């Protein structure tokens, strides 16, 4: 069975969603990018994505709420938070240890994603 390279990306900044999609795809990942968490959740496919990259501050439904909804639908998916805000990381850490701070280079983002994907469940 081939390795699952599907990634869900949710970021309300259109340019960021586009840039990360293109960047990750250049490293062989298959990215479904959304600028709305509502739309991302509506189109979510269980047991399809290996990893989700969620912005924390998103209008309508923030990253933590989205995390909980996704987790209800998919127990296996790895979830990383990504944010440009100086968020309270100890609160976010209760949900996921994988926290990515913007700005980050594509290479570092890929490394981080690969490390997280290789982590055993």
């Amino acid at each position, binding site marked *: 069975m081939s390795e699952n390279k599907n990634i869900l990306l949710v970021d*309300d*900044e259109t*340019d*960021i969603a*586009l*840039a*990360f999609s*293109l*960047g990750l795809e*250049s490293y062989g990942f298959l990215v479904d990018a959304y600028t709305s968490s509502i739309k991302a959740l509506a189109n979510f496919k269980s047991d399809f994505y290996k990893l989700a990259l969620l912005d924390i*501050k998103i*209008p309508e439904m923030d990253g933590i709420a989205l995390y909980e909804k996704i987790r209800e639908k998919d127990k296996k998916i790895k979830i990383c938070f990504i*944010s*440009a*805000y*100086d*968020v309270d990381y100890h609160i976010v850490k209760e949900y996921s240890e994988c926290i990515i701070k*913007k*700005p*980050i*280079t*594509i290479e570092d983002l890929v490394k981080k994603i690969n490390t997280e994907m290789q982590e055993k469940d």
Partner: protein
Amino acid sequence: MIRSILQGIAESPRFQQGELYGDNILQIAEDKFSQVNDVTKVDGLFIVDEDNIMTTHIVSEGNRSFVNIDMSFRNYISETRDTLQPVFSEGFTGIDGTFRIALTVPIINSDSGEYIGIVGVTIPTEPFFSLYGNIHDINSQFLVIYDKKGTLLAVGADESLLGLNFFEDVVQTFINHNQILTNLTQNLLKGISGSAIYDYGRGERITTNYPVFINDKTPYFIQIVTPTGTIYSEINNVLFGEKLQMFTLIGGTVAAITTLIMFLIKWNIVLDNQVKKRTKELRESNRQLTLSNQEIAQANEELKVHDKLQREFINVASHEIKTPIQAILTFSQLLQKYPERQTEFTPAISRNSLRLQRLSNDILDVAKIESRSLKLNKEIFDLNQVISNIIEDHKSIILKKNNKVKLLFYPSKEILLVEADKERIVGVISNLLSNAIKFSKEGEIFVSTEMKDNNNNNFHALVTVKDTGEGIDPEILPKIFSKFITKSFEGLGLGLYISKNIVEAHGGKIWAENNNKNGNHGAIFYFTLPLINNVKSSNNSIDK
């Protein structure tokens, strides 16, 4: 004393040799009789032989002498002989009717122990016991003396009772058969001390028992009878004296207490005044403290709000700076990797660079405002023309974004010439329009200008930007022109703060309200700028 004299007789050589009569004996007896009478009144000294026959009898003047008579009938003789001990006799009435007691000492040969006889004295009770206290006056303290059979040897109550037994009818009748006194006397004769108060018809008395002990025997018993009236009068005397002293003392004490009370009242008034003064001072101090506390609490609250705003600003600023940087960084990397897709990536880089520029401009403007170093490059221009151009620019932006918002401009009939920093005024209007577009999404945005006269021929331009969005949150409305106030997920919340400062720097005013009239909704922003032109009619150029 008497007994020792008699003892001396009994132990003298002649008596020891059985010589109990004769001239020599008589001489000795007389000497001793005289000697004894120096001590107390005795009316006879007698010597009896071993057969109880009186051999010698010395009597006081006027008394009869009895010699050669058998004295066996007297109990004290046989008792002395039987016990070989000195005897204090019971009371007895002599042949002459005198009531007496006798004191006898046995004469015993000190070598052989042979009983030889008795030497004794007879003592009239009345003079004898009167030596010890009053035995005559019933109205003051008096003595009653009994022998061990209860015979009255001396009695202050009534001399006629002398020699009678207490328990005889005569005596009992005299005391009206008073049971308290009878019981007390019975106890006395048993050797029991004690006292009692009684009244047998001659006034209340208190009587105390005193058994008389001689050589461990109690031959006589004394009652001291005291009329209580005398005691009470003495007590009264004492009490009266005490009372006087007490009154004096009480008088003195009352005077001292009165002085003390007066002093205390005075002191209390002084203290009360001091307390009132201090209380007033304390109240004032408390009031000041409360005010200070309220001010501190308010300042603290303001600091907390400010602190929270600062934290939020840093957080938002972090996001606003890092987001375009992230876009520029990633698109630059993509451009390096895929140079052939240059046309796809460079607009994004440009867009985010401009975003960064706007942000840095805003931050710099705030810094200038706060350091009071904001400089205005003023020029004269037509406000309507400038607004018209801005509207056009925003229309093209709306088109590009596929936004459904419609922009409508209603300029004033007059040309509105202002002397102002054009770039800054453009910034103010653009900011108001951008906000209106951002929060409207669809519907119409009305921009209008009017010329207003403030009644002093000082004209100013009134610019109105009215949207049909959700309106301004009532909580935010009062502080909408403050720093860091934003409901958007984009921007630092500095735009309106900068706009306000720019308008005010031009001598204008800026304010906002919600359009809640007639079922409308949305926000209305107004600002004014002083006009420099004379009133001129313009071409009615409504731009739609």
